[in-house]
């Protein structure tokens, strides 16, 4: 990746076509995508219920609902039958939702000039070291703001056991957008993390973290964010990156969190985004911050 910016991504509130094309530089002529996974899921379920199958499908759904209610009160046998029908419908719904998710990301990647990829998003950042298990879904790769990027869903799982040996798992979901910075830019920015205020990825917080906290001049910024850098980070480069105009944007228009270690710059958002508008905004904000990094290269 070169250290030039081409084209410039504006910080527009509305992502109309010209703005989208500065973010997704390889996007085809037609930028239209389904609104979200839910829209495709509804369409799939409706198509099951329509046509010649309509009467049978909706009839069996009604039977399952009525049967569960009446069966509980009157006839256990009826309840069992209704229960089986209900379970079948739940399985069908899960299957359709998973297919809808695949369809959505296939449409989204095509309409944004990205390609779906089965691999992981490899980056040497603390977030990707978390948990006992890690997995990637819906990974897409392609140019964002003219630079190679990888976008996808990341989940890390923490496995715990209680005193009786019972195992439990807790999943932590994220949507991530990863870039590789040019070596000359990474030389100035050794490690910068911007997280929501009050959030700490470390179990023991500030005291034992190898990073140090940095307080900047804006109260509004401080109320929203927690900025940490690695010990060897050059403060002059950091303050040049977070110039007053950028601080103002972060405090008001942008809501973006990232971890950067050397050449790896990864933006993250809690939860698995599955709405097109939210994914577009996430990529726009990430591209804008990437621009800042590249502008500060001297």
């Amino acid at each position, binding site marked *: 990746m070169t250290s030039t910016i081409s084209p410039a991504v504006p910080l527009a509130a509305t992502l109309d076509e010209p703005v989208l094309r500065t973010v997704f530089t390889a996007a085809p002529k037609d930028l239209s995508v389904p609104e979200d996974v839910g829209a495709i899921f509804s369409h799939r379920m409706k198509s099951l219920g329509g046509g010649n199958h309509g009467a049978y499908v909706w009839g069996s759904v009604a039977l399952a609902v009525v049967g569960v209610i009446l069966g509980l009160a009157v006839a256990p046998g009826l309840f069992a039958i209704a229960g089986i029908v209900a379970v079948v419908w739940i399985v069908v719904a899960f299957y359709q939702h998973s297919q809808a998710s695949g369809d959505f990301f296939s449409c989204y990647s095509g309409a944004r000039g990205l390609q779906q990829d089965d691999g992981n998003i490899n980056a040497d950042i603390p977030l990707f070291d978390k948990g006992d298990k890690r997995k990637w879904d819906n990974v897409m790769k392609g140019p964002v703001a003219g630079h190679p990027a990888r976008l996808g869903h990341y989940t890390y799982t923490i496995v715990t056991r209680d005193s009786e040996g019972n195992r439990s798992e807790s999943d932590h979901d994220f949507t991530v957008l990863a870039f590789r910075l040019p070596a000359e830019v990474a030389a100035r920015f050794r490690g910068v993390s911007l997280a929501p205020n009050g959030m700490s990825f470390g179990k023991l917080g500030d005291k034992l973290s190898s990073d140090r906290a940095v*307080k*900047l*001049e804006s109260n509004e910024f401080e109320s929203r964010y927690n900025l940490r850098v690695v010990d060897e980070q050059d*403060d*002059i*480069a950091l*303050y*040049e990156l977070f*110039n007053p105009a950028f601080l103002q944007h972060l405090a008001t228009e942008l809501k973006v969190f990232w971890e950067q270690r050397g050449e790896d710059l990864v933006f993250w958002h809690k939860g698995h985004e599955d709405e097109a508008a939210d994914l577009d905004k996430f990529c726009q904000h990430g591209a804008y911050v990437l621009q800042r990094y590249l502008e500060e290269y*001297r």
Partner: protein
Amino acid sequence: MVAVIVIVAIVVVIALWAVLTYNGLVSRRARVDESWSGIDVQLKRRHDLIPNLVETVKGYASHEKETLQNVIAARNSAVAAQDAGTPAAAGAAEGLLNGALRQVFALSEAYPDLKANQNFLDLQGQLADTEDKISASRRIYNGNVRDYNTKIQQLPSNIIAGIGHFTVREFFEIEEPSERANVAVSFS
């Protein structure tokens, strides 16, 4: 016996707090000094670029003596103020130097050959870069001063600050006299 233990425990806690507070103030003061030396480095770099700039301009605009003498004088005052070590003096001197440099760069508009000279362009770029770094260094220094001044004035750490003779430090501001002047607007 219990009363003695309680009193000893209170004394130990207070002593521990006093030591930690004192060390914290020392650490903050050291950060202020360190960040001031960061500004020093950038100011020196800027001052070192100016003689080269003057020589380059002389080659094209030798008769613009007054402007060149002004910038040399401003540069020498800034060096002296930097040696004196107070932020207020350094800030005022750098403000005057900014004004003098602006006049030198304005000269290039009247001398196209100077404007196109590669050495002049390089120096202009280096000075612009240095000013960005001075601005960043100034923010770092002022941030550390803010933290330090706040800590030595807040209760209860101001008790330890008073005992340890920690004094308020000045912020570093670069102000050009022309920025404070009223702007004359004419609609004629």
